[in-house]
Each structure stands twice: as structure tokens, then as C-alpha cells.
């Protein structure tokens, strides 16, 4: 399923809404999650999962092609942990 298919499903269920409003609604949700993580915040959606930010320390990496050492800066990366309900549903419980 891709973004446009998700928008279409929501639009089909809500014939009273304009398609462009459904697009704005769906886009707002994803935008808000990225925004929160950019501020270092967590987004916890019970039953679905939680988005959080993890810190990665600086390290010395290696260019796999040349074997040359390169300094990799410390950085923050997005992380998603699946919620219990969804995890159980994936396994048919």
C-alpha cells in the first residue's frame, strides 16, 4: 500500500470530505510525526507503535571499497517500535 492508496481508502469511507482535504489530513499526520521527532520528541500510538529518536555515537568508519578510515559524526536517527497489539495481530493472536 502506498500513500495515495491510503488516501483513497479514507476518501472512499468519507464521501462527505473533499479529496484534497483527505490528502491534507493524511499528510498532516505524517508531517506531525516527523516534526515531533525533529524536536527530539517521541510519538506513542498505543496498539500501533512508537516513534522515537536514538543517538548514535561518533565512530571511525571505513570506506568498504578503499579500506580508508573515515570519521563518522555522532547523529540522531529515527526509530520505530511495533506496538503490542499490532505485533500480536501480525501473528494471528
Amino acid at each position, binding site marked *: 500500500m502506498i500513500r495515495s492508496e491510503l488516501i483513497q481508502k479514507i476518501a472512499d469511507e468519507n464521501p462527505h470530505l473533499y479529496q484534497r482535504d483527505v490528502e491534507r489530513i493524511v499528510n498532516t499526520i505524517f508531517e506531525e510525526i516527523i516534526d515531533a*521527532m525533529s524536536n527530539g520528541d517521541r510519538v506513542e500510538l498505543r496498539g500501533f507503535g512508537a516513534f522515537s529518536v536514538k543517538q548514535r555515537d561518533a565512530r571511525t568508519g571505513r570506506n568498504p571499497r578503499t579500506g580508508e578510515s573515515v570519521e563518522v559524526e555522532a547523529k540522531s536517527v529515527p526509530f*520505530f517500535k511495533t506496538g503490542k497489539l499490532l*505485533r500480536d495481530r*501480525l501473528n494471528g493472536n
Partner: protein
Amino acid sequence: MASKTLTRMDLSEAVFREVGLSRNESAQLVESVLDHMSDALVSGETVKISSFGTFSVREKAARVGRNPKTGEEVPISPRRVLTFRPSHLMKDRVSAGNKG
């Protein structure tokens, strides 16, 4: 910067501000979005949201695990797990926003 935790309520509040539906309907729409994504994943589909990221379901084979406390061997049955791969845009924005 003190970090906080956002919930469904914050997402519906954002939808409410953006589109001007009732708070109640905004909350229902947030729920529908999560439900449709969950249903697709449970049916084994990959959910690919451009410029956000990709959720995919992976099959894990059965293996023998160990209780780290007692050292006892326990069978772990085959199972399906969900993985999320953030888009480049998400990685860039999260890394830029949390510098320093």
C-alpha cells in the same frame, strides 16, 4: 530541550487545526489511518509512505533462544515481525533537528 511524548490526541489536534473538522471527527480520521495501515500490514502487505518511510513485514524462522537469567533453553516459534525503514527525508530532518 526537554523531550515530550505525543499521542493520538496531538495528531488529531493537528488535523483539527489544519482542516477544521470537529475534534471528534479528526480523532476518528487519525484512527482510520492507523487502522488501514495495520490491516494492510497484517495481510502481509508492505506500507510505503513516500518521504516518510516504509513498513514491511518479515518472516522469522524458528530458533532456540535462551532465558538470559536462568540459562534455560526455550524454543522460539516462527513469527512475523514489523520493520520500519525511515525515508531519507525523515533521517535528514531528524538528524538536523537534533544537532548539538
